[in-house]
Structures are given as C-alpha cells and as structure tokens.
C-alpha cells in the first residue's frame, strides 16, 4: 500500500500512457504476448486508485454502517453515504437519496419489476422493451408476464441493427405502462435514440426505464436531461468493484414503491405483527450493505470524473473509428451494426468458417481477450440471424496498437483454420 499507488490522474487532456500505468494488469503477458484486453463490455479492468480505496476501508476504518456510534462506524457511514453522493453527482440526479446501491444492473432491473411492477401492473397491462435488450431487461418482465398476466412486446430491430422507430410508435399505446430500453447495446455498440422512445413513453403515460450498463462507463449521462424514471448500471463495467451497481429512481416513485428485499437496516420498526420502512435509499438496501464496494464505486467515479467523461468519449470515439476501418478490411469478417447512427467502440463479428468460441480460444493464444457467445442478448442475435459472435469491446486504456494486434491475429487464425 505504498504512497505511489495513491497518485491521482491528470486533470486535463487524455494521456493514455499515463492512464495505463494505473492498471497494472495491462502489464501481464499471456502465452508470451502482451495482454490485449478487449472484453470491456463484459467487465472492465480496475485502476489502483479504486482498489486502494477499498483497501483503506478494510484495513483502516472498516465497520458496519448505520447504527454504529463508534469512530469506525462514523467513518464508514460517512464514506458510504458520500459514495451515493458521488454517483448522484456523476449522473446529475437531483438527490443522493435517489441512488440505490444494488449488486449489479441485473438486480437493479429486477428491483423495478419486482417492486414497482408488482405493485402497479395488472393483467392485460403492456410492457414494451426493445429487441436489443440484454436478458436482464427481458427475463424479469417475462416473469411478470407469467405471474401477473401482463403483455410483453418488443420494439423490432432493423436488419442493419437499429431500432425500428415506426414500429415503436405503433407498439407504444395507452395500454403501455412501462417502456424499457437499453441505452447502448452491448452487442452492437449502438447508442439508442433515447429521447424519441422516451417521448413515445410519455405520450402513452408510461414509465421509462433506461438500462445504462453500457452507456454510463463511456459517455456523460444526465438523468434529468434524459428524463428517465429509472436508470440501471453496474460498477464492474465502469472501473468499479464487482458486487455493486446502482439504480437511479425518481424520488416520488421510490417513496411510494413497496420495498424489495426485507430484513435489517431497511426497516424503521418490526413487531410480531407488522413492520415499517426506513427512509430512502436505505429502504431498498436490506441487510448489511456492500460497504467496501460502494466506496470502491465512488472511487471509480472519481477516477472517471477526473479524466472527464467527454475526454473519454472523444478518445474512445477516435479509437473506435480506427478499429471500424481496420475490421472492415478483414476479408471474411462479417460485422454487425455500425451502419447507421452513433455507436460505442463495441464490435460484434464473425469470421467465415470459424466458430466464435474457437476464434476466441485461438485469439487468446496471441494474448488477445475477446468474448464469444450470445452476449446475453439471444433475441437480438436471432433477429440478426446468428447464434453467437466474437466481440471486441474497447475502453479508455486501449490503443490503436492494440487494434493492429487484433487485426494481425485474426489473419493468423484464419490460416490456422484454413478459413
């Protein structure tokens, strides 16, 4: 835990070499090659500053929060509340009490379905999501369909990989009680037209839920400007720890919703007969909170804020443009999406004659970490006519040199498979 680990990142500009020094794992060699980590849409790497923030909690002021009066309890309570405030500032929430810490984006979306959904949806009510959703914004609604008899509809995706807005206009009707949308696709990188869909939801009087798991790590997010009712995200996709994510919800909604999990810390009183609930956000954080993880997420947000989300977006945009151009020139490579509209540096593709799992397995031999599979978006995959793809997803520490290494390795692999 030397002092050197605690140095801060430069306040201005974007110096990728400097950034990479904060991520020691990037120095690893895999099968005698330097690690090229391109699996960032699955989970990102972690800067020392984040890890150190958690270490300090564990080794210097660890205690259970809330009801403790002693000094360690005071210090950890303040730090944990401050983490909520950092996230609130990061996405421009009106109040830190609108930030609920959960395990991950999946739990955030389940929370919406299992609390607001159960309390407000009736048989015949309609929930509309897009066909581009991650499973975490599909299956919880299917569960409600099966238990409550709601109707689940999907906004179609065109063959070039964007939302069919005309169909959305027809699908979202006064029967629609909630519209769920992935802010940026984890398969295609597509940044969806939020305001168009939100306006359709508003016209119908429906709630509007954004799955920001892929957007908030890469671009500035302002929940008041987006005017969503809920916004879900995962810490591990934005330099933060595993085991933590957040759900933003408008205070007026959170106040009237029933609780989610129940037990300690989320109650005001418990008797044999009945219980009453604690104030926000604690009403939704049952049991001992993920204190270290909350503090770690706060540190990750600090890191991103110091670099500046607009700088990060610009850097990744340039990197993504370069990768797009190079990938498009690989023969036998079929790329999905990236034809219309804005996209993040997330590239799903297939190599003719090579199963994606074999491709990923072989790329690992060159030190290159990409993901293969259905990316938890099977309905989208089916729509685009594939079962699985390779996916290379970039983040702020990746470089153009790494794009080149990827493209070179793809050439080698084609030889190996005689493809």
């Amino acid at each position, binding site marked *: 835990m030397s002092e050197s680990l605690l140095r801060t990142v430069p306040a201005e500009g974007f110096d990728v070499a400097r950034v990479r020094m904060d991520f020691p794992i990037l120095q690893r060699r895999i099968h005698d090659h330097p690690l090229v980590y391109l699996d960032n849409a699955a989970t990102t790497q972690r800067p020392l500053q984040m890890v150190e923030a958690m270490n*300090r909690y564990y080794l210097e*002021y660890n205690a259970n929060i*809330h*009801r*403790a*009066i002693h*000094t360690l*309890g*005071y*210090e950890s*309570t*303040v*730090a944990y509340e*401050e983490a909520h405030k950092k996230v609130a500032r990061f996405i421009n929430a009106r*109040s*830190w*009490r609108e930030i609920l810490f959960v395990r991950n984006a999946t739990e955030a979306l389940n929370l919406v379905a299992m609390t607001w959904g159960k309390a407000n949806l009736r048989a015949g009510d309609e929930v509309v999501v897009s066909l581009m959703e991650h499973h975490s914004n599909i299956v919880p609604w299917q569960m409600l369909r099966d238990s409550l008899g709601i109707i689940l509809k999907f906004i179609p995706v065109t063959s070039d990989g964007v939302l069919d807005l005309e169909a959305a206009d027809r699908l979202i009707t006064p029967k629609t009680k909630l519209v769920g949308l992935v802010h940026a696709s984890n398969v295609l990188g597509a940044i969806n037209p939020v305001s168009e869909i939100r306006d359709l939801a508003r016209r119908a009087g429906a709630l509007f839920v954004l799955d920001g798991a892929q957007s908030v790590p890469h671009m500035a997010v302002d929940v008041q400007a987006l005017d969503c009712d809920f916004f879900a995200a995962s810490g591990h996709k934005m330099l933060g720890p595993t085991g933590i994510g957040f759900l933003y919800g408008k205070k007026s909604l959170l106040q009237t919703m029933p609780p989610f999990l129940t037990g300690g810390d989320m109650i*005001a*009183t418990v008797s044999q007969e009945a219980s009453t609930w*604690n*104030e926000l956000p604690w009403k939704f954080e049952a049991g001992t909170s993920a204190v270290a993880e909350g503090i770690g997420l706060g540190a990750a947000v600090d890191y991103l804020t110091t670099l500046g989300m607009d700088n990060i977006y610009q850097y990744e945009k340039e990197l993504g443009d370069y990768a797009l151009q190079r990938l498009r020139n690989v023969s036998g490579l079929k790329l999905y999406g990236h034809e219309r509209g804005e996209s993040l540096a997330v590239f799903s593709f297939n190599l003719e004659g090579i199963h994606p799992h074999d491709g990923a397995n072989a790329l690992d031999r060159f030190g290159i970490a990409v993901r293969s599979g259905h990316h938890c978006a099977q309905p989208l995959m089916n729509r685009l006519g594939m079962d699985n793809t390779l996916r290379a997803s970039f983040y702020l520490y990746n470089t153009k040199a790494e794009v080149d290494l990827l493209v070179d390795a793809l050439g080698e692999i084609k030889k190996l498979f005689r493809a």
Partner: protein
Amino acid sequence: MTAPNPNDLLDVDPLMMDVLLDHYKHPHNFGALPGADIVHAEGNPSCGDQMEIALKTKDGTIEDIRFQGKGCIISQAAASILTDMMKGERLDRVRELTKDDMLENIGIPIGPMRLKCALLALKVLKAGVYGQAEWPGEEDD
C-alpha cells in the same frame, strides 16, 4: 479521509455536560398534556426511540407544550430545550425553525451519528404541526 468524529460526549465542556445531564434527569415540560389539540409521536429510525409531543394552542399561539418518551441524553435535552423555547410562541414559528437553530440551542457539537437524536424533537413537532415528512435539514437532500 473524512472529518474527525465530532460526536463525542466526553469532549463536551464539563459545565455543558452538567446542563445536559440536568435536562436528562429532570426534563422540562415532560409528561402528558390533557386537552392538547395536537398530539404527534414518531420514532428515531437509527435507535428506535419514540417521542411524543403535545400542544395546546389558542389563536395561533402555543399555550402549552409537553413531550414524553424514552431517549438518550441528547434527544431528551433537545426536547426539554425546544419545548421551553416554543412555549408561548406563535405556531407559525415551528415552520421557521431550522436544523441549525436546534443545534445551536443544544450547545454541544453534534456529529452525524447523533444528528437524529438532536433533531428528533423538532422533527416530531414539525410533523405534528404541519405534516413535514423529511427530517429537518433533509428537505432538499
């Protein structure tokens, strides 16, 4: 990493401690108030202690005010002080009273872990008189 914990009964000036202890052991305006026209009780979520405040008003003035309930030295002293302050005051003043007013009148430094103790009486009063839902100071949280 954070400001030191100011919430420390033993750093309190011994004279101040005597004042607090006196309020604690012999609270002013303690007990039921027969014929009250406003009676309201609430709990402190961080400890479970309950406090009730009762008022008798006439023409918008607080003629009498009493509190009851169990609690710590800080909450009891705060209630004792607040009820003293409010007796004979116009009811409108309840709205104007802020968190800082209350803390000043207690006269010892209050840290975040005891804040609700210090504000419980004011919270109950505000909730009883005009239904305020948030804790004083958390209105714009």
